[in-house]
C-alpha cells in the first residue's frame, strides 16, 4: 500500500506490518497504521475486522506476533499493559472498567494511587482529578466525590476518558465511546474527544457510527478482514467511500487489491 499523505509530520504511534494469530486463525495481516498528535484518527471496520484485536495489541493485552510498533519514531516492544501505559498509551474500553462502588477520584487513580509513605494522599489526588476534569471543561459532574454508580452513561464515559488523560498520556484509544449513549450524551462525549485532540493528544477512535466519524475525525483508517484497507485524511474521502472500504475493502483506487481481498475471504 502506498502512503498517500506523506509530509504530515511524524506519527506518534505507527504500526508496520503488524500480524496477530490466535491459534490457526490469523486475525491481523500486516496492518499499517499511523496516529498523529493533535488529531483524531477514526478506526472503522465491520464486526470481526480486527479492530478490537488491533487495539488490544497496541495496549499489550494481546502482544503482536510480527511487524513493528513505533512510538515517536522508535521501535518499541509492547508485551503487557504496563509497557503501553509506560509509553503514554491509554485505552478506554467499551465497558469502561470503572468500579461502581468507588468515587470518581478513586476510579481515576485506581491502581496508581498517590501515596505519602503508606498513606493514600487523598487531598492531592482529589485536587489533580478536579484539575484534569476542569482542563477538559467537564461540567456535567456534580462532585468528584460522587460514587460512579450514581453517574449516567455519558458521565461514566467522561470519567473513563478523564482517567486516561490524567496520566500524561500521549495516545488515547477510545473503543466505541458513544455506542450506548443518547443524543445529548453523545454530543458531550464527541466534544470531549475533540478537546482531547485540541490539547495535543493523539486520539484513536473506534466507532461504527459514520456520523461520529465525519463529525470529529481528522483521519480515517478502515480495517477489512484483518487488513488495513485505507489510512487517509478524512477530507479525501466521503461517507460512501468509507462504507465501501468497510464492507468491501476497497473503493475506487483506494483499498486492498481485489485479488488479496478475495483471497482472504
Amino acid at each position, binding site marked *: 500500500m502506498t502512503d498517500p499523505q506523506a509530509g504530515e509530520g511524524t506519527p506518534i504511534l505507527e504500526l508496520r506490518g503488524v500480524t496477530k494469530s490466535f491459534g490457526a486463525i490469523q486475525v491481523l495481516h500486516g496492518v499499517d497504521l499511523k496516529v498523529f498528535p493533535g488529531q483524531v484518527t477514526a478506526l472503522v471496520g465491520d464486526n470481526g475486522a480486527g479492530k478490537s484485536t488491533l487495539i488490544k495489541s497496541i495496549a499489550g493485552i494481546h502482544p503482536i506476533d510480527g511487524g513493528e510498533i513505533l512510538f515517536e519514531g522508535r521501535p518499541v516492544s509492547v508485551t503487557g*499493559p*504496563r509497557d503501553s*501505559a*509506560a509509553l*503514554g498509551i491509554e485505552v478506554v*474500553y467499551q*465497558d*469502561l*472498567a*470503572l*468500579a*461502581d*462502588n*468507588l468515587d470518581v477520584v*478513586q*476510579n481515576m487513580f*485506581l*491502581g*496508581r*494511587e*498517590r*501515596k505519602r509513605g*503508606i*498513606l*493514600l494522599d*487523598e*487531598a*492531592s489526588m*482529589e*485536587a*489533580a482529578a*478536579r*484539575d*484534569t*476534569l*476542569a482542563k477538559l471543561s*467537564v*461540567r*456535567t*459532574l*456534580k*462532585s*468528584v*466525590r*460522587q*460514587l460512579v*454508580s*450514581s*453517574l449516567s452513561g455519558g458521565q461514566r464515559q467522561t470519567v473513563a476518558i478523564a482517567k486516561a488523560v*490524567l*496520566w*500524561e498520556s500521549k495516545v488515547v484509544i477510545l473503543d466505541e465511546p458513544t455506542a450506548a449513549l443518547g443524543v445529548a450524551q453523545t454530543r458531550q462525549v464527541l466534544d470531549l474527544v475533540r478537546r482531547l485532540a485540541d490539547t495535543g493528544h493523539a486520539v484513536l477512535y473506534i466507532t461504527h457510527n459514520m456520523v461520529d466519524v465525519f463529525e470529529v475525525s481528522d483521519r480515517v483508517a478502515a480495517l477489512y478482514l484483518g487488513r488495513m484497507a485505507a489510512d487517509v485524511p478524512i477530507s479525501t474521502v466521503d461517507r460512501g467511500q468509507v462504507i465501501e472500504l468497510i464492507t468491501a475493502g476497497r473503493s475506487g483506487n483506494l483499498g486492498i487489491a481485489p485479488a488479496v481481498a478475495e483471497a482472504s475471504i
Partner: protein
Amino acid sequence: MSNPVSTTKPEPSGAAPAGFEADRPDNSVSGVVRGYVDKVRGGDLGALPAVLGIVALGLLFFALRPNTFLTPLNISNLLVQAVPITLLAMGLVFVLLLGDIDLSAGVVSGVCAAVLAQLLAQSGAPWYVAILAACAAGALIGLFTGTLVGIVGIPSFVVTLALFLAFQGVTLRIIGQGGTIPVRDEVVQGIANRNLPVTLGWVLTAVAILLYAAIQLNRWRVQKARGLAHQPLAVVAARCVLIAVILVVVTAILSQDRALSAAVDLEGIPYAVPLVVILLLLLTFVLSRTSFGRHVYAVGGNAEAARRAGINVTRIRVLVFVLSSTMAAISGIAAASRLASVTAASGAGNTLLYAVGAAVIGGTSLFGGRGRVRDAVLGGLVVAIIANGLGLLGVEAYLNFIITGGVLLLAASVDALARRRAAATGH
C-alpha cells in the same frame, strides 16, 4: 509517569473550578441531614440498621429483664461475649468485600485455638509463643485457602465448604476424641477474664477521644484549606462528641464494681475490649487509608476493572484470605480465653454463621464491594445482645436457634432490598 499533573497548585481559597456544585459543601447542618436522608432513602443504609437494632433490642430486653439486663455485670459479660464473634467478623468483612465467602473461618479459629491449647498444656510453651504459633497457623491456613481460590481458581464457597469439613477433623486430631484441653495460662485467660485497672481505663479512654478528635479535625482542616470536598464543622464536631459520649458512658459503667459478693473487687474494662478497639482502628486504617484497602474495594466492585488498572487481583485475594484467617486465629484465642478451654467442637456449629451474620447486620454486603470494619463491631454487638438477652430470658434452645436465624435472614433481606433500591435510584 507515576506523578503526573501534580505540579498544578490547588486553586486558592477553596474556589473549586466551576462545575462541581456539590463540592462546595452545603455548610448548613440541615443540608447534611437532608443529604443523609437522601442517601438512606436511596438504599445506602450504612450503619443505620445495626444501630437501630442495638437500640431496639436493648430496650426490648431491658423491658423484659429490667433487673438483670442493663447491669454493669451483664454489660461487661455481653461485651466479652461479643469479642470472638466480632474478631471473626472483622476478618470476614475483607472476604465479603471481595464478593467471596469463607465458610471455614469458624473451624479455622477452632484449629488455631487447639494449636494454642496444645502448646500451652502439652509442650509448656510460654504464652507469647503459643499465641504467635496460633496466629501463624491461621496465616498459613489463609495462604492455603487463598491459593486455592486466587491461583487455582476454585470458587471460595466450594473451597471453604470442603475446608469446613476437613478442619473439623484437624481440630479433632489435635484435641483427641471427645477431649477438652483446659487453658490455664494466666495471660491467655486474662484476655477475656481480667480487667484493666480503672485509672488506666480512663486514661486510655481520654487518649482515644483526643486522638479521634484530633484526626477528624485535622482532616477537616486540610480539606477545607485545600478546597476539597468536606463536611461542615458542626457535623465533624457532633461526630467527635458522640464518640466521646459513648466511650465515657461505657468506661463509666465498666469502672463500677460489678462483683456479686462484696468480698471481691470486679471493676475496670475487660482487656478484650481495647483489643477489639485496637484491631478495629488498625484494620479500618488498612481498609480506608492504604492502597491495599482501596484495591480490596476495587476487586470487589469490579474485578476486571481492577485487573486492567494493573492491580494484581490474585495477590489481593490471597492476602485477604491470609488476613481473614489470621483474624480467625485471634478470634479463636479470645474464645479459648473466655471459656478457659478448647474442645474438639471449638469453632464448629454456628460460630461462623454468627460472624457472617454480624458482618451483614452491620452493613457489609454479601454481594461484595460494600462494607467497613466497624460493621463487624456493630453487628457483633447485635448478635451478642440477642444471645445474651435470650439467655437471660431463659428461652429454650430451639427458640434461640430460630430467633437468631430469623435475625440473620432479616439482615440479609435488608441488604438485598437496599441493593435493589440502590440500583433503582443510582446510588
